[in-house]
C-alpha cells in the first residue's frame, strides 16, 4: 500500500511536464481552428475547463471558469453564479491547486518560459505580493462586474477585459493573425493587454510562475480549497531526516514539512523528487491526516 502510493507520487512528480502538455492539448483540442481564425462553437462550451484557458481561444474545448463566472454575474439575469461557484468548490475539493501544477495551460506556459536561460530571482522576499490575487478575485472578478453596470444591468468582465494575459495570448493574437477583420479592430485595449502579457512573459523568465503567485484569481480560489482538498501532501515523519532539501526545492516558497497543505502549494511535487528518503508523497481521499484511514481510495 505504502509502496504503491510512493510509486504514484514519484510518477506524477517526474512526468508532470507530460501531463501539463496533454492537459493543455485536451483543453485546446480544436487545433485546426487556429488556421481558420474561428472559435469552436459546440455545446461542450457549456462546461468549464479546470485551468485558466480563454474561451475565445480558437482551439478551446470548454469555457474558462473565471470568464464564465464574470459572464453570469455580469448578465442582466443573474447576480450570482451557483453553477460556476459549485464548479469551483467541486474542483477545489477534488484537486485544489493540483490544477495549477498539472492542468493549467497558462501555468505551463510560464514554466516553459522559466526554462529559458536568463537571470533567475527568488520570490522568497516577495511573499506579501501573494495577497494581490485575492484582491484581484474580489475586485475584478466579483465586485466590478457585479456593480459597474449599464442601465440594463449588464456588467463587463473586468478581469478578462483589463487584466487577463491569457486572453491576449490565446485569443487576440492567434485570431488577429488569421482574421483580417479582427486585425482591423485591434485598438488601445489590445495595446494595454499586450503590455500585460509582455510584462508577465519577462517576469516569467526571471521568476517562477509570477502570474500564479501574485495575480491569478483562479489560483486564489483553488488556494482557499487546498486545506479541504482530497489531494494533500503527506510528509512521513518517521522517514523525514529534516535535511531541508524540500524547502529549498520548492519554487512556490512553501516549507512542506511545516505546512503540507499551504495555500501556495501547487502540488508540483518538486519536493517529492528532491526528498532523499522519499518521505513526501501525495495522498488522496477523505480526511487524510493519517494514512490508516479506511477511505484511502481513488489513488
Amino acid at each position, binding site marked *: 500500500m505504502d509502496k504503491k502510493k510512493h510509486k504514484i507520487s514519484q510518477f506524477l512528480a517526474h512526468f508532470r511536464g507530460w501531463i501539463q502538455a496533454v492537459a493543455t*492539448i485536451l483543453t485546446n483540442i480544436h*487545433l*485546426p481552428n487556429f488556421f481558420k481564425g474561428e472559435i469552436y462553437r459546440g455545446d461542450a462550451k457549456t462546461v468549464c475547463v479546470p485551468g485558466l484557458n480563454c474561451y475565445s481561444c480558437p482551439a478551446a474545448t470548454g469555457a474558462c471558469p473565471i470568464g464564465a463566472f464574470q459572464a453570469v454575474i455580469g448578465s442582466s439575469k443573474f447576480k450570482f453564479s451557483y453553477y460556476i461557484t459549485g464548479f469551483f468548490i467541486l474542483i477545489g475539493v477534488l484537486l485544489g491547486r493540483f490544477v495549477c501544477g498539472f492542468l493549467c495551460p497558462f501555468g505551463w506556459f510560464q514554466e516553459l518560459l522559466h526554462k529559458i536561460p536568463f537571470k533567475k530571482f527568488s520570490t522568497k522576499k516577495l511573499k506579501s505580493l501573494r495577497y494581490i490575487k485575492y484582491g484581484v478575485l474580489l475586485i475584478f472578478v466579483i465586485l466590478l462586474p457585479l456593480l459597474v453596470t449599464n442601465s*440594463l444591468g449588464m456588467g463587463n468582465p473586468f478581469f478578462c477585459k483589463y487584466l487577463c494575459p491569457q486572453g491576449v495570448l490565446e485569443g487576440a493574437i492567434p485570431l488577429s493573425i488569421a482574421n483580417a*477583420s479582427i486585425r482591423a*479592430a485591434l485598438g488601445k485595449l489590445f495595446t494595454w493587454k499586450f503590455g500585460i502579457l509582455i510584462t508577465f512573459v519577462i517576469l516569467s523568465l526571471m521568476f517562477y510562475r509570477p502570474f500564479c503567485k501574485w495575480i491569478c484569481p483562479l489560483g486564489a480560489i483553488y488556494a482557499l480549497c487546498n486545506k479541504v482538498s482530497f489531494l494533500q501532501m503527506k510528509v512521513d515523519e518517521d522517514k523525514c531526516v529534516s535535511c531541508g532539501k524540500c524547502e529549498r526545492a520548492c519554487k512556490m516558497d512553501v516549507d512542506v514539512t511545516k505546512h503540507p497543505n499551504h495555500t501556495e502549494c501547487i502540488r508540483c511535487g518538486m519536493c517529492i523528487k528532491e526528498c532523499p528518503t522519499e518521505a513526501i508523497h501525495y495522498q488522496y481521499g477523505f480526511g487524510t491526516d493519517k494514512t490508516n484511514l479506511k477511505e484511502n481510495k481513488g489513488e
Partner: protein
Amino acid sequence: MKKLTVMLLIAAMVLGVSACGNSANKENTATESQMSTQEAEDLDAKINELTQKENSILENHKALWEKVFNSIDKSTVKDATATNYGDFLANSLDKIKDKFTDDELKSLKEDVEEIKKLEDELQPLLEKQSANASNKDSGKEGASVFPEFKAKDLDGNDVDSSIISKNAVTVLNFWFNGCSPCVQELPELNKLNEELKEKGGQVIGINTDSLDGNEDGIAEAKSILEKQGAKYTNLSLDSNSEAGKYATSIMAFPTTIVLDRNGNIIGEPIMGGIDNDESYKQLMKTIDQILAADKN
C-alpha cells in the same frame, strides 16, 4: 524533457492536421446534396435542346413573328423571362391581332401553344439550374452577396429582401441580448439610421437571440431596443435560411456589414462597436462610397 516537449508538439500538429482532414471530408459530403458536374451538364444540354425547339418554331413563321416582336413594348421585356414565354407571346400577339389575317393568326396561335408546352418543361429545369448556381455561390468562401431572405420584424410583420433593394445603402448590425458592447452601440446605430434616412439608407439589426421567432429572445430584444431608444427595423431570421446561416456563422459580436442596393457586401465586416472612432470612420467611408456609386 525538451525532447518530450518537441515530440508532443509534433503529435499536436499531426492531430491538428488529421482533424483538418476530417472537417474537409464533412464539407465534401455537404456539397454532395448539390448537383454533380455530370448532372449539371445533362441539365444544360436539355435546356439547350428545348430552347432550340422553341426557336425553330418561331423560325417557321419568321416574317409574322418579326411583326409581333417589333410591336412589343421594350419595358415589358423583362416579363418575358419571369413568366412562361408562351404566355408572354400570346399577350403580345393579342395586342396586335388585327394586323394579321385569320389564317396567319391561327398558325401563330398554334406556335404559341407549342411553345407553351415546351416552356412548361423548360421552366422547372431553369429553376433547378439557377438554384444549383446560387448554391455554388453561397458555398464559396467569402461570398460577397448577402443572401435573399424572408423574415419577420420583432413585431411579427413580414419583411423580405426587397427592403434592401429599396435603399441605396443598408447597414446590417448583428447583435445578441447578452452582449454588452452590442447593447452599448444601439443608440449610436439609431442616430445613424436617422441620418441615413435622408440619404436613402437604413440600419437593420439582426438579433441572433430572436432566430426562428424565439419568443423569449424577441421579448428581451424588444425591451433592450426600447430602453436604448433604437427604433430601426430588427429582424428575426429563420436559422435554416441562407441569411440565417450567415447570421449564425458570425462569431464576433457586434459585427456590422454594409450592403448596396443589390445586396452586395461592400468592404470587410466591421467587428466591435461602431461607437469607436476608427470603426465609425471606416463605416462612414464605406457608406459614402456606396451612395456615390448608387447615384451613377
